[in-house]
């Protein structure tokens, strides 16, 4: 479904990816984990064609994303769905119109049909009653659910979730987890979940990838990663304070800095 081969990508002089390899199987829930700033969101942007890798290949549905002309790229994107961290709902329209947006823009359906479709999707995420609220009136969790409804309204084949668990209370978290699982099992949507919530992901992921230092440090089932011995993987999975990722930001020698008297 999705194949990333030997991708190199640098931004602002910093090398983000130094030879990334990953595969997403059709119908699976694939977790992509890694520390903040490690490039997880960037990876998603490579998949949607928003950015182009410096080297390597990114293939979605067997097509090289970077080589697609504008129209083909837009056609590809219609088969994908992306759930943003903050939902990214259009603020000048209500929930109903937000979910209806992709349909109205791309398909030529009668309004009655659109209405049924939107209500169907809203029901799937449990927010049919909220159809006429404005995005500003929604809580974080609700906004994300509406965004999910919007992402699935065109029946995409692949859904990408960008940090879906951030800032949610336990109940909302559980809801989102269940929804991701449901989308996958009930609708057969291939799901790519980007997060650093190790615990949460372990409960639903079929396959996990851990990105450390611009490369895949570990790949396999969640259980495999949990039991790994590699120091970097170990530190990440258990949240250890010391390991390859140091606690102290690089600085001068502590003693000499303390003893130095007020020289600017």
């Amino acid at each position, binding site marked *: 479904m999705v194949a990333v081969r030997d991708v190199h990508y640098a931004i602002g002089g910093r090398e983000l990816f130094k030879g990334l390899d990953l595969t997403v199987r059709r119908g699976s829930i694939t977790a992509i984990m890694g520390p903040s700033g490690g490039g997880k969101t960037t990876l998603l942007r490579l998949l*949607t064609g*928003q950015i182009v890798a410096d080297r390597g290949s990114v293939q979605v549905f067997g097509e090289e994303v970077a080589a697609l002309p504008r129209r083909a790229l*837009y*056609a590809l*994107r*219609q088969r*994908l769905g*992306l759930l*943003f*961290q*903050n939902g*990214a*709902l*259009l*603020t000048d329209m209500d929930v109903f119109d937000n979910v209806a*947006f*992709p349909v109205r*823009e*791309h398909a030529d359906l009668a309004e009655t049909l659109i209405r049924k479709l939107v209500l169907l999707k809203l029901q799937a995420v449990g927010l049919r009653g909220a159809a006429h609220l404005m995005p500003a009136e929604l809580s974080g969790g609700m906004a994300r659910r509406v965004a999910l409804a*919007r992402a699935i309204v065109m029946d995409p084949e692949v859904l990408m979730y960008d940090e879906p668990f951030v800032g949610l209370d336990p109940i909302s978290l559980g809801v989102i987890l269940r929804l991701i699982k449901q989308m996958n099992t009930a609708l057969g949507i291939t799901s790519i979940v980007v997060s650093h919530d190790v615990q949460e992901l372990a409960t639903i992921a079929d396959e996990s990838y851990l990105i450390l230092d611009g490369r895949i440090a570990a790949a396999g089932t969640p259980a495999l990663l949990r039991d790994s011995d590699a120091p970097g993987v170990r530190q990440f999975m258990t949240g250890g304070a010391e390991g390859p990722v140091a606690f102290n930001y690089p600085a001068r020698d502590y003693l000499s800095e303390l003893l130095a008297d007020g020289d600017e």
Partner: protein
Amino acid sequence: MSNGVRSNYVLDSLVRLGSVLLFLLRILGQCLPALARPALLMKQIYNSGARSLIIIMLSGLFVGMVLGLQGYDLLERFGSEQALGSAAALGLLRELAPVITALLFAGRAGTSLTSEIGLMRATDQLTAMEIMAVDPLRYVVAPRFLGGLIAMPLLTAIFNVIGLYGAHLVGVQLMGIDRGVFWSQTQGSVDLHDVKEGLVKSVVFGLACSLIAVHEGYHAEPTAEGVGLATTRTVVASSVLILLLDYALTAQFL
């Protein structure tokens, strides 16, 4: 931008100019599809035009009245008070209406456009649209650009009429000039050429202000701070450009 080194100001300005012009080309390509969505366009004409009405009308009235006062005082020294109508009409038509309307527009509607688009940029709405395979230029930018472009000449015309009425109010009611003389003098000295000059200016200003406003919003840094800076840039750039273009156009018409 934050590497501590003062970048070349001239180079920056050139880059910005190029960016704006390229942006214009992209927008123009999307204008025709935007016209096919009258609902969107109408909403933008409302936002840029109808919501600026009050401020334009108020300003027009007061500018017209001041013109009446100052004009009367000045002309009286030459014994030509009757020419107040002409002076006010020509002053408004050729200079004051297009320029002041444009400056007010940049301040009210321009900043609104920039912050709207900038906010959409900052909250990933524009990116979300791109992912949903909807071109934000077509859906968000072009309607706003066209809305501003259409609204400006209309606002200027309204400013003109109300301004003239203000001058009339001062000249006739306050200063005692004969109503018939006021209007006949005015009609006698205003030429279609003058009206055309004002109209062309308002269209050009509309294009410039709308373009700058949407460009700054679209290219704003996606942070709260970035949006604020973009809004400021809109007002400053618009104002300077208006005055610059005004000189160029005035020279062209004389």
